[in-house]
């Protein structure tokens, strides 16, 4: 059987999983739509009544919206770093999981910045950042960096899809509508696996994977500088940029593991996404957990040892069990040690435990972002004459939780839509027989 025929056969197999939506996926789709609609109602409420419907007040001006923003941009690292690095290093086992990673990147970069708009008191003034933005402002850097990052992520995903679109266009066995065929024909740009076309496409992919890595690092560094360049205790730190980058890759990898588990289980992709993939990605998660733990320890040890008055106010809020202590220790210890335990010790290491470790890591990383933003803002540098507890202490309102749930629902909805139009497994790639590799025989 020729390579092309293998590819065509695999394509039919994989797309058979996504051909007709099941009752469960229809129900899930409706459920997610309902969540998004409810979030939309909350959004209208916020736009008409103003930010009084949120828990944000004079002191805590960034609540869980900003937490979600950092969280979503963080998980976008799954595609940018994992996919980019593995592509550059020509790691063969990456192929079945690389598409999921790239999709996570594009979807999360589409959703994340929406939360910045929600944080704004006057959304209609968003365009002012382009009209009156000052180049020396980290907020302007952030807008530029995220726009560029989104463009590059979409291009990276599209380049990787061209060969699959060509297969979809040419496959006669697949029963898809003429409209979809037309779309595939356009997106496949007359690609016919000609040697020169293949060469150019591979060059493009290598360039994009090389560009996307420093770009992703820059985006999260800029995000960290929004905090680090203020002189607020808890934020003004020289290691914030690398700390944010490591935290982002850590959470991105964890989300990738969860997505792999869901797709493998629900779409029966056991043949393509094997235990080996979980173990390899799990080992990456182990290294990242160690690095993240090291950065956390270094950051808090330095601040605590320095005993600077204002810094200590924040740090004791984090250490105190009557304040944020429980959440802090959960994020700092459970969020690092449990994923390390499940990925590091062979006895515990299997698909399910690695996924559980990833879920714990993701939850703890969200909590960690909350702990970076809220306790700091609850510690005002200049005391006000009238600081009522409700002005200082932040509790997210139902509107904020609804819009958070809406973002998560939108994330899954986008995934469901994406997989209807894009092969979740890069068929053209996994059908290639690499030199001196037992690739096909391992069905990797």
């Amino acid at each position: 059987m020729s390579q092309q025929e293998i590819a065509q056969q695999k394509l039919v197999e994989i797309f058979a999983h996504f051909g007709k939506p099941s009752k469960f996926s229809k129900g899930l789709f409706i459920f997610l739509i309902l969540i998004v609609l409810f979030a939309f109602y909350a959004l209208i409420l916020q736009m008409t009544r103003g930010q009084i419907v949120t828990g944000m007040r004079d002191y805590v001006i960034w609540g869980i919206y900003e937490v979600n923003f950092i969280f979503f941009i963080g998980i976008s690292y799954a595609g940018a770093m994992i996919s980019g690095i593995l592509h550059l290093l020509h790691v063969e086992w990456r192929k079945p999981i690389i598409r999921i990673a790239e999709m996570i990147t594009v979807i999360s970069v589409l959703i994340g910045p929406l939360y910045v708009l929600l944080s704004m008191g006057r959304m209609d003034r968003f365009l002012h950042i382009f009209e009156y933005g000052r180049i020396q402002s980290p907020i302007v850097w952030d807008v530029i960096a995220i726009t560029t990052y989104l463009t590059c992520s979409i291009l990276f995903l599209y380049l990787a899809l061209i060969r699959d679109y060509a297969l979809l266009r040419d496959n006669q066995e697949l029963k898809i509508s003429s409209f979809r065929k037309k779309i595939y024909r356009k997106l496949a740009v007359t690609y016919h696996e000609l040697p020169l076309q293949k060469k150019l496409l591979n060059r493009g992919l290598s360039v994009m994977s090389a560009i996307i890595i420093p770009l992703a690092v820059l985006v999260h560094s800029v995000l960290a500088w929004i905090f680090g360049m203020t002189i607020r205790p808890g934020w003004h730190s020289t290691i914030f940029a690398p700390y944010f980058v490591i935290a982002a890759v850590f959470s991105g990898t964890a989300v990738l593991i969860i997505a792999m588990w869901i797709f493998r289980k629900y779409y029966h992709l056991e043949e393509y996404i094997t235990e080996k993939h979980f173990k390899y990605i799990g080992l990456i998660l182990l290294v990242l957990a160690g690095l993240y733990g090291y950065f956390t320890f270094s950051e808090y040890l330095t601040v605590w040892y320095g005993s600077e008055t204002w810094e200590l106010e924040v740090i004791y809020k984090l250490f105190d069990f009557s304040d944020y202590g429980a959440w802090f220790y959960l994020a700092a210890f459970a969020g690092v040690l449990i994923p390390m335990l499940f990925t590091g010790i062979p006895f515990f290491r299997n698909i399910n435990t690695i996924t559980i470790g990833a879920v714990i890591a993701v939850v703890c990383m969200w909590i960690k972002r909350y702990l970076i933003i809220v306790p700091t803002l609850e510690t005002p540098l200049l005391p006000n004459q009238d600081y009522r507890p409700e002005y200082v202490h932040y509790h997210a309102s139902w509107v904020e939780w609804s819009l958070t749930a809406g973002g998560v629902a939108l994330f899954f909805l986008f995934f469901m839509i994406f997989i209807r139009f894009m092969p979740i497994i890069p068929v053209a790639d996994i059908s290639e027989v690499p030199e001196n590799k037992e690739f096909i025989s391992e069905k990797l």
Partner: protein
Amino acid sequence: MILKKIFQIILVLTVFSGFNRIARADEPVTPRITATYAKLSDGTKRISIALSARQNDKRVNIPDAALQIIAQNEAIKTILGNVITNQQGKASLDIEPGTTLPRDQDGYTFMVLFGGNTKLDKTSQSIHATEAFLEISLNEKDTIKTITARVIKHNEKGEKVGIPDVPVEFNVKRLFCLYPIGNEKTDSLGSCSLEFPSTMPGDKNGKVTIVVRMPDNETYGTVEESKDINWGTLLVYKVKPIRGLGDTDAPLWMVYTLLVLLTGVWLHVVYIIVLVIRINIIGKKAIKS
């Protein structure tokens, strides 16, 4: 045996003290009002109040409590106003200069009333302040600048007499608070002096505001007086700061770095688009041939 007895006594006392606490738990507590009087340099009279109560053997501040302040003498009672305590249980009332207050022989009596509620008893506190005045004179001889303060009151005949042996603070007004430059005590004539520090910065004209206070006196309250004079060193403003947060122009290195980075990335984006177009052209040519 003795130890057993001691233990029994301690046990009984502990149980009884517990009952006593339970019994007291529902009874209203009598709060404590602490009021002080101050006469500021612009002639404003300020009544500062703190309201607190004992709760679980701890003194706690009472916020959001309404208090009424009355000025009174034997014949007249005038309601000056109502105030509400803040989160620290504190409130203050300013009486504007020129307000006519009922006065007695040597000063004013103020009454602070708390109406009570279900948890706190009704209570009141009165304070009396004998009216005192501060006079400041500023003298410069050779290069030595001296501040002389005199604390006085009116006697029965209406004559000015000095108040001896009271502490006086000398300060210079800064942006957020007072900067203390010295403390003295009045002599038998009610006077005291202090040399003004020659290195004290003033504004761009050398102007400083000297504030002299007689603080927290039991009889007279706090009395404050101030005077402006150009005794300070001249403040020279830096015309061009090296870098300012509100600068409208970005540093050039930042502009160049951003341009290089953006151009670098976006050129690659353009390059990828060109590659896709080339792939398309190659494919079309192949189809034609």
